[in-house]
Structures are given as C-alpha cells and as structure tokens.
C-alpha cells in the first residue's frame, strides 16, 4: 500500500466537478487500502499576475515526506497543481488554464495581445509543457482534454473518464413539467441562454437551476433577464442540493440542459443520461459531445437562444420522443459501464508509476 497525495485546487466557497473528482478519488484510494490525503491551495484570479505566483508556489512546495512518512506518489489534477515537484508524479488532468489555450482569442479569455499578457502566456505555456512533461503518467478526464494537451503542448495522454459518483443510484421517473440545469453558474456555462430561450417554450414548462454562482454580479444579470422576460414564476434557483435531492430532480425532469462552451468533460451529461433524460446541448460544447449524439441521446443544436428554445419546445410537445431519447441515453450508459464503477481502471492508470518493485520498496522502507 502506498502513501499518496492528491493535489487539488480549490476556489473557496464554490463546489463543482473538480471537488467531486478529488473527493471521490481519495475515497476510492482509501477503499483500496492506500494512505491517501489531499493537498489543496486556494486559486485566485484576477489579477492575472497571480497565475505566475500560484504556479511558482506549487513548484516551491516540498511534497516528498510528511511526519516521517515518505510520499510515494502525487496525483495532480487541475492547473496549477501539476506544477508540484515530485519524483513520482501522476496527472489526471481536469484542465489547464483555459484562457491561454482553447479560450484564447474568444469572449471567455482575458488574455489580449499586449506584450505583458503575451509574456505571461508564454511563461505559463512553457511552464506547463515542462511540468506536465515530467509526469511519470499522464491522463485526462476526457478525449477533449487529452486532444487539447496534444495539440497545444505536444504531450500524449490517456483518456480516463471519471466514473459517476453515485453509480446505480440514478433513476428515471415520470417526466414533470420542468427543465433541469445543473452546474456552477457562470458565463461559460451559458445558463443565461436557456433563460432567454424560455419564452419560446410553452409557458407550463418551468426551469429549475441547481448550482451556485461563481462570478461576481452573475446573479444580478440573470435576475434582470428573468424580470425582463417576465419569467419570475417559471425560473427557480435551488442552490447546492443534497445527493438525494439531485437524484430526484434528475428523475423528474422533462429534459436536462447542459450547453457550456467547450466543456472539459461534464458530470452533468452522464448523470442526466444515467437518469434516463434527454440532454439538450450545443454543437460547441466540447466534452459533452463525447456522450450526447444528436437525435440519439439528446439534441445537439447551435449555441443560440432560438435553437435552444426550439429544441426544448420540440421535447415538450413530443413527450414520447423525449422519453425515447432518455431511454436510449440510459441504455448507452448501461452498456458503457459508467454505472458500475470504472475506478479500477482509473486507479490502475494513475498508480502505474508505482511499479511492483517500487511498491515493495515502499513497504520495506516502512
């Protein structure tokens, strides 16, 4: 058994996919008899200059031993945790700092062409290539994330999809008159598009939004849109809900909306499919499209208000179709094995730098 540190990056007062991933990974490592713990540093931007400092701070940490225990392996997850130095470092990449990669030159990046930004971008780019390149095992949480790493930094990575945290507990129930949106509430998740699209959908259909805001003023903006379109009676913000509540919300939804811009992976997609619900997503939603196929397990539409509105209207008017898409989604999830764990494969990959002899040495040394 090995001493393992999972390196997480925490945005205080928020909870998202990254937090779920770190918590469940530690739980699964412990279940397999490893001594596992988490090391997290808070992540804060802006100002952008903080990125360099936070990368350097991770780099400066000594993670080789604590309290007389040698650390056999560290598992890095999200930028900048992979800047940590350790002779045996595994990477399960959630994402790099996207504003300098796939979001660059688009509306979600704050990096411009001025020399200061460019100097910073180049430093992070070369830093990433170096510190990820030194990992003994490199993987990513989706095909999308691995393709980015290959295209930008020239590094190969293995795809290790995160298993569904609640496994077979997801269930399907009769569709009620609401659309469900789950996830952090921020610009790139594009909850605003659904709110603006709601007037196109029959007014008996309501919208339930699960998740907490993680951008300043975003709730003011959304509330303003709700007031402007007279949707006060139709939109409900539920905040963070318990596991059981989430299962019930999925089970009763007409369909699930999940259309972020170029999502890395997106637990929500798999949770919705596992709950037998059709997913409406966008053609530029990245990792979501690894699971949602247009007309098979959901609807893939252009990322605009009209297209999203008409997609939900179609599902609201043809409940049989919505149910069929959902049932096919559940069948897909059953076949792909997502409901039955998959942790052995994930942990097998992440722990591969601990070869048999390494493991033996670690035990002997102790």
């Amino acid at each position, binding site marked *: 058994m090995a001493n393992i540190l999972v390196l997480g990056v925490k945005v205080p007062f928020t909870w998202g996919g990254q937090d779920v991933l770190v918590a469940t990974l530690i739980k699964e490592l412990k279940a397999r008899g490893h001594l596992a713990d988490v090391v997290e540093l808070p992540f804060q931007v802006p100002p952008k*200059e*903080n990125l*360099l*400092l936070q*990368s*350097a*701070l991770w*780099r*400066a940490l000594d993670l080789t031993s604590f309290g007389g225990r040698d650390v056999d392996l560290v598992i890095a997850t999200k930028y900048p945790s992979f*800047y940590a*130095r350790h002779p045996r470092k595994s990477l399960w990449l959630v994402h790099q700092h996207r504003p*300098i*990669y*796939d979001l*660059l*030159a*688009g*509306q979600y*990046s*704050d*990096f*411009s*062409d*001025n*020399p*200061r*930004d*460019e*100097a*910073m971008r*180049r*430093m992070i*780019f*070369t*830093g990433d*290539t*170096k*510190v990820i390149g030194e990992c003994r095992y490199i993987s990513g949480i989706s095909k999308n994330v691995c*393709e*980015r790493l*290959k*295209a*930008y*930094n*020239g590094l190969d990575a293995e795809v290790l999809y995160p298993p569904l945290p609640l496994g077979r507990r997801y269930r399907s129930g009769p569709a009620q008159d609401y659309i469900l949106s789950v996830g952090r509430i921020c610009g790139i998740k594009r909850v605003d598009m659904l709110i603006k699209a709601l007037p196109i959908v029959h007014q008996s259909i309501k919208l339930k939004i699960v998740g907490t805001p993680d951008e300043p003023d975003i709730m003011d903006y959304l509330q303003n849109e709700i007031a402007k379109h007279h949707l006060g009676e139709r939109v409900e913000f539920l905040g963070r809900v318990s596991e059981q509540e989430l299962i019930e919300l999925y089970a009763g939804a007409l369909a699930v909306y999940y259309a972020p811009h170029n999502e890395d992976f997106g637990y929500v997609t798999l949770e919705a499919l596992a709950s037998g619900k059709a997913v409406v997503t966008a053609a530029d939603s990245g990792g979501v499209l690894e699971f949602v196929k247009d007309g098979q397990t959901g609807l893939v539409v252009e990322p605009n208000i009209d297209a999203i509105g008409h997609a939900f209207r179609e599902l609201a008017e043809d409940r049989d179709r919505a149910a069929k898409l959902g049932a096919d989604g559940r069948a897909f999830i059953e076949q792909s094995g997502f409901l039955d764990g998959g942790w052995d494969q994930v942990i097998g990959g992440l722990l591969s730098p601990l070869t048999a002899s390494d493991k033996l040495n670690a035990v002997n040394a102790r």
Partner: protein
Amino acid sequence: MTVPKLRIAWFSALNLGACGPSTSGWVSDLLLPELSSRFEIELFCDSFKRYPGFATRNFVAACERHREAPFDLFFYQLEDRKESDFVRLHIGLMPGIVYFHDFLLTQDGPPALCSSRWQETVAAFNAEGPRLVEHLGVTTPEALREGALAGVALFSDERHHDLFRTHVTERIGKGSKQELIRSCYLPFPLRPQSLKATAGQEICFCGSPRIEHRAHKMLAAIQAVDRGLHLHWLIDRSERPQAQALIKEFGLESVELIEGRSPSRWQELVRHCDIALHPLFSVYGQTGPYLEISLGSGLTVISSDFGASDYLSGSQVYLVEPGLTEAQEFEAALRSVLTGNRAAPETIAAAVLEQHDVRVVADELSRIFIDSAPLLAELMQNFETQITAERQRLLAECARLADNPPSEVLESAFADLGWRG
C-alpha cells in the same frame, strides 16, 4: 549552393474537411499549392485538424513553434468572420504580412482584444502611439487596429486599400521608422476554368435575401423580363424561409435554391450558368471573391454601381444604379444581355485573369514575401525584446507579491521553470 527557402507561418481560416464559406480558406486552397515549392510553409488555424499536405498546428502553439524552428515571416489572412478572431489576436502577437479580405468589420471581436493596451505594441513599431489612440478612441467599423499592427498590408479589394491609405497610414505613418506601412492591392486568385462554348440564359445569384443584397430588385427584374428564365440562387441554410417567401411574393416558378454558400460552391455553380447577378447596397459590401469568380468563368455580370463596384471597369460588367429605378435598370440590362449584347465568355475571362490568375497572384505574393522579410525580421526582433522586458518585470512583481515564502524560494522556482532565461 542552394539558398534555404524562407520559412513562413501561414495563419488563416482553412477548409478542413468540408469547403467552408470563408474567403481565406478559398484563397489558401488556391495559393498553397502554387507556393509550396518556393517556401517552407507551416499552417496555423483555430482547430486541431490537419490540412492535407502541410504541417498544421493550432495557433496557440505558434510562438513555441517559432522558438523551436524560427519563421522568417508570419502571413495572416483576415476577414470579417468569427473564424478570423484568432488571426486578429495574433496580428498583435507577432508582426507580419496581413492580407485583408475585409477592412470594415461588423463585430468588435473578443472583449480582451478590444480592451487591450495594444498601443504599446504599436509604440514598439515606432509609431506615434498617443496620437493613434486619440484617433482610435472613436468607435469605428474599420479594422484600424489590425491595419496599424500590420507590418505589410495587402488588400484583395481595392476600395479597402484606399480606405486603409486614407485612414491608417496617414495617421500613424508620419514620424515612424517605417514612414508608411507598406501596402498594396493583391487581387483574389482565380484558377482558369474551361468555358462554355456558347452563352445561354441560365442566371445565378449568391446574395442573401436581406435588403442589402437587393434580391427584391433582382427578382422584380426577372419577373418583368418574363421569358421563362431559370434562376439558381445560392443561399445559406438559415436563409431558406426568407428566400422562399420572396420567391412566392414575386410569383416566380423557375428558381432553384441551393444551400451552402461558399466560394467553391459558387465556382461549381457558375460552370453551368451564363449570367451572374451581383447587386449590392451596403456600406460593408464588397464584390469579391464571388464576382471575380463569375468573371473568371466567363459569365456576363450585372452589378450595382455601388461601393466596390467603383473599381470595376464598365467594359467588364453591366453596372446598374441602385435606388428607385434599380429594378427597371436590371430589367433593361437583362433584356439587353439576353438579346445577345454581351462579350464572348473567353473575352470576359481573359480580361479578369490578366490580374487574377492564381499563377500571377502567387508570383506577386512571392515577391512580397522576399522583399518584406528583412523589414519583418526587424519588427519581430523589436517585439521579442519587448516581451523579454515584460517577463523580467512580471517576475519582479511576482516576487514582491509574495511576502512568505521568501523570494529566494520563488527565485529557485522561477529558474527551475525556465522563466528567467
């Protein structure tokens, strides 16, 4: 002794897989085969896909690639499409030759770009930064920022070149080391086509059903001529309902709607047609490359006498005055053409190919590449110096931000990450 070929970083929207609507993609398809033996070209685009026959990378990795195997020059194609946003950004990151297919932009571009302190970059070009900012403080549809950042500016539209000369070079050129940014008109490339032996009566149109493309005037003219004319109308998929409504309004029966507007689709379509209609009435409007494609295929062209049409010779096309009498003028022009008052296809094609033949354009662009390389090398070096200075400033600030741990710990991390050198 063989002279090493110039290494060129080619930034453009590309046709990766299907032929897209972008002009840059079309121009790349034509020029790349002509230039590939003369230069060492690597392509950069906003995709992970590969363009057949060429090393293709995502633009994010361009500076790293430049560090590994330096380029002699960066070549950019810019147009008024979202797919060009990455080009707009990179023009500021690495000075180069910019081939403008649009100079009037309908969108501001990415927010970070709009608020960037790019005047610092301009100042690095030894231009008068503050004066430039003073001028550009006003919202304007002209691509002034991109124009000012271009090391060499090429225009596929003569009207845009004129706008550039009056709006950019006059403002920032004086007092600069460059004096005036080098600029010239570089026509759209066209590949010579096999022409129809005799001209018939098939009509084609590629404008949108929106008012600026004057479809209502053109359809009125066709209705008035009423000789069983057949119209092939190339549209975008989203325009179908509006186009159908217009066709119904004018009671036309012989109209074929073809979806998927792109230069290559138009090239395919005009092969079977005889008369092309290019009406236009918009401040953004320009003729290319569709009108040039029509002429290059030997079609008789009827166009609005507006905007970029000013640069067309009356002997090449029928020019129609936009406005109240526009439909009647179209009708008259159509009647005239249909009664045989038109030049032979080979005459029309020969006139336009004199300038637009892809071999001629490729030769011209090759000369521009070779002539501009020394100037661009100097500009790139200036920019790199500025980046290095910024890096040192950033590291100093970063060390100051950290009270704990002490700065020597960070220094060691900086050195380890290669940020110092």
